């Protein structure tokens, strides 16, 4: 059995004719061969029977057998051989009869033997051809383009696949130099491929070839070298696979990859690719894939958040992120914990979102730069939905330093404005404050003078002197307190947020305005609920809100002919809030004024700036609270300052 590469070496051209025309053409050829063989057999018989040529004419039947053998049909060969034998015998008997024996008999026997042997050989050959043809059929079944070429590069076999893809029929291709026909272009010089083929017997590579209609094909090419018996290169079998479509898909993929790579590299948004698989596994192992279980676990084990953060691997970062984080690509921390402040609470929130099956999580936090500086950032974490997606969690990070700075500048401007308003408020309260300071000063002076007189009496009354001095001290302190309160109220720098007792806050505010009430003959009722929780905030700003509301109420009540009562109440509100209520019995606010009351520069006072309530509401909102108003014209106005209550009162609260 010859090796497959050798299979096409005895092709019958018919087997690889054009697919559509092949069958009829083959039938036509077979018909012609059979006719030719029949005519030849007839002619030989006539010569053999009618002439008396002394010779082995019958041997010529062998030619007919050889001729019909080309149809490669067993029946044809047997028929012609049988006809040759029968006609030879007939012609011999007809001429010589049965009893003749001599040279003629020997010649007839030789002829019969020659016919039989040639028929046998033809049948043998026919079997071999049949087997080869079936193997060539297999090659034709392949979609790959397969052809063989001889040492000159001329095509000797051309598969159906080659004909279909290249567009050249077998007839057009056979005998042509393959590289010319297909305008083959090599990535490397052709000689290299030949050298490899020569040395190793095979070569593989990618080629560009051109079809009959001018299409350019990317093909993967495999060559195999067939050597002859002497070991000399004989034929080359080339197998080509059209990878143009695959190439195009690959090119698109590469393009897409490049596009995303460009986005990744060039965008100003920092991108971090994180691997959450270890974390995911840890969550599964501890049965924490359910958000409520996770939340409970986090509450019981505060250290778990840090552990979880350690498990998040930093896989890749883009240049924008390295710029934000201040780490070079090479020195980028391997774990998330090194990038986040230990106090960060957004990670826990994102973890809960992840456990809850969210697809993304947004938040604001601070990154720790390589130099230790903190960078405020806005981030979005995208959680892939696939199970193995935990391996590529993408985090998009935007540096909001500038925005934060603008925010800070705005807050500073607001603080500046609030300060200006405090100065203005105190300006309105000047008379009251002067009175408030004057009272203790007067008491100090008078007590001092009285003390002197007690001393200078004929029998000094030291008890009275002591009492006077004690009062001097108390009143001096009181004056100092008032000065401190005023100075605090005017402080320019924002005071840090701190725990504040609502009762003390209200009392301080009342003290600043107290004399106004006296002057305008306003009855003040203060009621503070017991055991109020504390709040958290800027003491001066909140005091400013209360002072402002009280001064407004006082001005509303000034000259009012109805009852002049101001009720101040501090108590619990709904949902962990504290409510400061400032209610007056004054003329109220008209329905027309009410909606615009908090608008900046909106005022109903002749010399008002219209900023007081606007700032009050801003302050309330900045503390996570609200400032509301209700009013009934002729009955009075109620302002409510609602603030979140943050903590229970400290056990040793003053």
């Amino acid at each position, binding site marked *: 059995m010859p090796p497959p590469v050798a299979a096409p070496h005895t092709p019958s051209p018919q087997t690889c004719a054009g697919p559509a025309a092949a069958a009829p053409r083959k039938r036509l050829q077979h018909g012609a061969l059979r006719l030719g063989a029949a005519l030849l057999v007839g002619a030989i018989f006539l010569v053999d029977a009618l002439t008396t040529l002394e010779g082995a004419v019958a041997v010529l039947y062998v030619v007919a057998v050889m001729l019909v053998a080309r149809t490669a049909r067993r029946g044809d060969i047997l028929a012609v051989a049988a006809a040759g034998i029968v006609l030879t015998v007939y012609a011999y008997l007809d001429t010589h009869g049965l009893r003749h024996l001599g040279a003629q008999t020997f010649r007839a026997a030789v002829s019969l033997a020659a016919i039989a042997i040639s028929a046998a050989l033809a049948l043998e050959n026919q079997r071999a051809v049949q087997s080869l043809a079936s193997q060539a059929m297999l090659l034709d079944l392949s979609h790959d383009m397969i052809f063989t070429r001889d040492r000159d590069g001329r095509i000797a076999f051309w598969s159906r696949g080659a004909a279909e893809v290249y567009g050249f029929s077998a007839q057009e291709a056979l005998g042509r130099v393959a590289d010319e026909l297909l305008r083959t272009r090599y990535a490397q010089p052709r000689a290299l491929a030949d050298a490899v083929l020569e040395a190793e017997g095979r070569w593989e590579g990618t080629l560009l070839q051109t079809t009959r209609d001018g299409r350019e094909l990317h093909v993967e090419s495999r060559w195999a070298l067939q050597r002859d018996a002497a070991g000399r290169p004989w034929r080359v079998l080339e197998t080509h696979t059209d990878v143009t479509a695959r190439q195009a898909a690959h090119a698109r993929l590469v393009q897409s990859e490049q596009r995303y790579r460009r986005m990744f590299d060039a965008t100003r948004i920092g991108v971090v690719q994180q691997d959450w698989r270890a974390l995911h596994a840890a969550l599964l192992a501890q049965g924490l894939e359910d958000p409520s279980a996770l939340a409970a676990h986090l509450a019981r084990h505060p250290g778990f958040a840090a552990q979880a953060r350690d498990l998040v691997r930093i896989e890749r970062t883009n240049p924008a992120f390295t710029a934000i984080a201040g780490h070079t690509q090479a020195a980028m921390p391997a774990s998330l914990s090194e990038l986040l402040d230990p106090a960060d609470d957004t990670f826990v929130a994102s973890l809960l979102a992840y456990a809850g099956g969210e697809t993304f999580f947004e938040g604001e936090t601070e990154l720790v730069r390589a130099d230790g500086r903190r960078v405020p950032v806005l981030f979005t974490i995208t959680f892939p939905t696939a199970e193995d997606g935990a391996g590529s969690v993408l985090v998009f990070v935007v540096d909001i330093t500038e925005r934060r700075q603008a925010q800070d500048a705005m807050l500073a401007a607001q603080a500046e404005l609030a300060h200006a308003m405090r100065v203005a408020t105190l300006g309105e309260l000047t*008379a009251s404050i002067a009175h408030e300071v*004057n009272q203790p000063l007067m008491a100090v002076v*008078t007590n001092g003078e*009285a003390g002197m*007189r*007690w001393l200078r009496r004929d029998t000094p009354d030291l008890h009275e002197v002591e009492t006077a001095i004690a*009062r001097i001290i108390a009143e001096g302190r009181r004056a100092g307190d008032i000065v401190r309160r005023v100075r605090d109220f005017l402080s320019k720098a924002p005071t840090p947020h701190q725990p504040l007792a609502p009762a003390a806050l209200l009392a301080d505010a009342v003290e600043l305005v107290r004399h106004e009430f006296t*002057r305008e003959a306003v009855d003040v009722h203060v009621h503070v609920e017991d055991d109020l929780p504390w709040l958290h905030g800027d003491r001066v700003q909140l005091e400013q809100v209360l002072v402002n509301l009280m001064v407004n109420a006082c001005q509303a009540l000034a000259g009012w002919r109805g009852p002049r009562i101001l009720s101040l109440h501090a108590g619990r509100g709904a949902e962990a809030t504290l409510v400061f209520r400032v209610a007056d019995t004054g003329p109220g606010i008209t329905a027309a004024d009410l909606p615009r009351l908090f608008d900046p520069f909106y005022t109903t006072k002749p010399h008002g700036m219209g900023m007081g309530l606007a700032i009050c509401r801003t302050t309330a909102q900045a503390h996570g609270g609200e400032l509301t108003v209700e009013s009934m014209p002729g009955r009075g106005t109620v302002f409510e300052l609602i603030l979140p209550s943050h903590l229970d009162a400290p056990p040793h609260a003053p």
Partner: protein
Amino acid sequence: MRHSPLPPTSSVPLVVIVDDEAAVREALDSLFRSIGLQARTFASAAELLAQALPDVPGCIVLDVRLPGISGLDFQAQLVAQGVALPIVFMTGHGDIPMSVRAMKAGAVDFLAKPFRDQDMLDAVSAAIERDRQRRAQAASLAQVREQYQTLTPREREVMAHVVAGLMNKQVAGLIGLSEITVKIHRGNVMRKMGVRSLADLVRQAEALGIQGPHTSV
């Protein structure tokens, strides 16, 4: 409210202090007691009005701004209740219009806080002196009234004509009596009223409000 440790006696003048500031009340209380006055302190006008005061010479030291009622309204109320104590007003700064009104309404003095103790003591002394005088005047008027009550109707008639400047003869003619009878009545009047001269009788008649011959008391 702080009461004076001294028992109120008729001889020691009383200073009534009304101020809503406890510190001011206490300081003034100590000051007045240090010079031997007795003092009573009240936080509001209402407290004072609810209290009966001892009948001694004295004055009121009053903050012009009181909770619930203005000092001036309070002054008016006191007058209406017949409390005639002179008032020394105290004020913060800048209450000029109010001080003018207070003075017009009869305030003795007006002191701006903080004041010098001597100024306050002077003002209080002056007020007490004024009250003492007023009391003395009131006391003498009461005596004259008592004496007048002892006159018979005819003697009162004669007195009215005499203080109006009529001669005995004219009086006799007017009321149809003899000149001698008129003379006796007139002598009784002078004796009962305790006066020596016509001029003194005229002054008493003025104090009693007797102005003309047809005036009845």
